[in-house]
């Protein structure tokens, strides 16, 4: 098996044991990328020379004891909305097509401190706005399980790169499901931590109150190790939370005895594909057989999460994306007549359709006369949704659900009907509104051979329960490599 077929922790172990070098690992990653990129298009930028130099440096550092952690020397891919000093960071947008950051985002910096070797930057929906990676200005990413289907999004490039074994693991970001949904579609494991756990410093903002960085990997152990590496209390992010502990790996135990797992009945109604339902319920059965107490309950308010999300996320996006004006960095239009015309033309030419759609909606709901009716109404709804989760977690250790109502749709079928596309986020979005942690891991495939994801949702700061239950479930299955890997 290729070294990229190993989990990050297994590869790290081989590198530490001297069985392979960090340089050989990086070389294998690039060989894999060169072979598969034409079919998958996971990357916006591949940094081969830089990465091989870095691998040499890490290898030396390991020999002298500077890098001793589990991820030292292991090649990683980074979603292209995390700033990386001297490496293009485009957000898959024309407006940032030439942007070379002067600093590195805190999460990536934490990985570098642990001896990570960055291979390049992965494709995404433009500014993370989308569920298919089709809104990228740099072409569509394909699902490595079937290249006629989307990988999901917005972290579609990161999830496809992990599934296609072009990297050992990746970082993604999740604003409404952007790690968990593509992980589900690509048959990999992805985790969105509690809001504030991973610093957002250097993550190009979409919806600041919802955005979280998290790991995408082949298994739960990798996710726990990566999360432990990137989580930090960072004074450069004023919403960073100082947690009581940053240990996640001690939860890697094959034990769910007595755990109370709630299944929201309202997640299993209309719109859920029958094959997805079947596999997710079968996973619940497995956890029950291992000793968990599984019960159905009414979560309530499920149908209000998407409208509330789109008001809040678009409002925040319209403000966050105001900085792209053609003055300090990025694209500037060729011809213009005065300052305001330059702003308007730059932005109109630089942003794609979905981004403009969300900026327009966000500007509208924040405008005088509509602010109370839409923006404040959505924030009040968010408070009610949070209360519904608080109630659920007073009874259950975690919630079990699908990650998405269907498996990956075919390329070209989603963008024409935005509301229909937004409905695909129904099981992931309320987790971001309530700031909760969630994990998606493979639990089966449909009759077309496309992966199905199981989602576990925990109360704030209770990642360890999720990791433990997900790990226990994973012990009942073999990791399945996709055909393209």
């Amino acid at each position: 098996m290729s070294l990229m077929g190993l989990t990050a922790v297994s590869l790290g172990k081989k590198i530490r044991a001297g069985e392979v070098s960090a340089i050989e690992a990086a070389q294998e990653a690039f060989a894999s990328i060169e072979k598969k990129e034409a079919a998958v298009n996971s990357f916006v930028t591949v940094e081969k020379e830089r990465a091989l130099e870095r691998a040499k440096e890490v290898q030396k550092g390991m020999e002298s004891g500077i890098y001793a952690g589990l991820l030292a020397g292991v090649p990683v891919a980074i979603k292209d909305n995390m700033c990386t000093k001297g490496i293009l960071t485009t957000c898959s947008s024309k407006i940032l097509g030439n942007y070379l950051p002067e600093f590195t985002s805190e999460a990536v910096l934490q990985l570098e401190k642990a001896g990570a070797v960055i291979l390049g930057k992965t494709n995404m929906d433009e500014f993370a706005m989308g569920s298919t990676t089709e809104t990228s200005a740099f072409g569509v990413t394909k699902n490595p399980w079937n290249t006629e289907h989307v990988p999901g999004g917005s972290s579609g490039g990161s999830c496809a790169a992990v599934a296609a074994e072009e990297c050992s693991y990746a970082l993604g970001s999740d604003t409404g499901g952007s790690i968990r949904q593509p992980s589900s579609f690509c048959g990999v494991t992805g985790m969105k931590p509690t809001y504030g756990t991973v610093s957002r410093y250097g993550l190009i903002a979409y919806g600041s109150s919802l955005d979280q960085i998290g790991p995408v990997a082949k298994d739960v152990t990798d996710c726990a190790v990566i999360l432990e590496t990137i989580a930090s209390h960072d004074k450069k992010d004023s919403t960073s939370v100082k947690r009581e502990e940053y240990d996640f790996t001690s939860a890697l135990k094959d034990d769910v005895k007595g755990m109370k797992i709630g299944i929201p009945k309202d997640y299993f109604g209309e719109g859920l594909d029958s094959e997805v339902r079947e596999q997710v319920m079968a996973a619940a059965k497995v956890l029950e057989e291992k000793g968990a107490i599984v019960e159905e309950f009414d979560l309530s308010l499920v149908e209000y999460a998407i409208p509330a999300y789109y008001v809040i996320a678009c409002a925040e996006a319209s403000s966050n994306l105001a900085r792209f004006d053609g003055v300090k960095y990025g694209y500037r239009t060729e011809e213009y007549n005065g300052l305001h015309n330059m702003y308007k033309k730059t932005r109109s030419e630089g942003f794609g359709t979905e981004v403009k759609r969300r900026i327009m909606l966000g500007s509208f709901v924040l405008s005088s006369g509509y602010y109370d009716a839409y923006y404040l109404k959505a924030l009040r709804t968010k408070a009610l949704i949070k209360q519904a989760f608080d109630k659920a977690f007073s009874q259950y250790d975690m919630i079990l659900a699908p990650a998405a109502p269907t498996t990956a749709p075919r390329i070209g079928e989603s963008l024409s009907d935005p509301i229909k596309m937004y409905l695909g986020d129904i099981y992931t979005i309320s987790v971001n509104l309530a700031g909760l942690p969630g994990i998606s891991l493979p639990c089966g495939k449909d009759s077309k051979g496309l992966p199905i994801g199981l989602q576990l949702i925990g109360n704030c700061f209770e990642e360890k329960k999720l990791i433990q239950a997900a790990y226990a479930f994973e012990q009942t299955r073999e990791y399945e490599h996709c055909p393209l890997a």
Partner: protein
Amino acid sequence: MANIISDETIEYVGILAKLELNEEEKEQAKKDIGEMLDYIDKLNELDTSAVEPMSHVFPVNNVFREDVVENGDGREISLANAPERKEDSFVVPRTI
């Protein structure tokens, strides 16, 4: 469609959003915003009169620090990204 977006509204939102839409895009935006608002109006089914708006799930307060420069001089690397520069300045169209 219950929410009809007027030409004036689209013009106004375009000014707020600093976007210049052509006629076709304006018509599409009127349709898109109208349809989204119809969908968002579902929130009116909920009685939220006794609920405070929640902007953050955790209590967040302003974080203060001393105003001390810690990040060194990034002038050259910052200016290197400028679409247009003149010596140590960003160049913008004449504003007055």
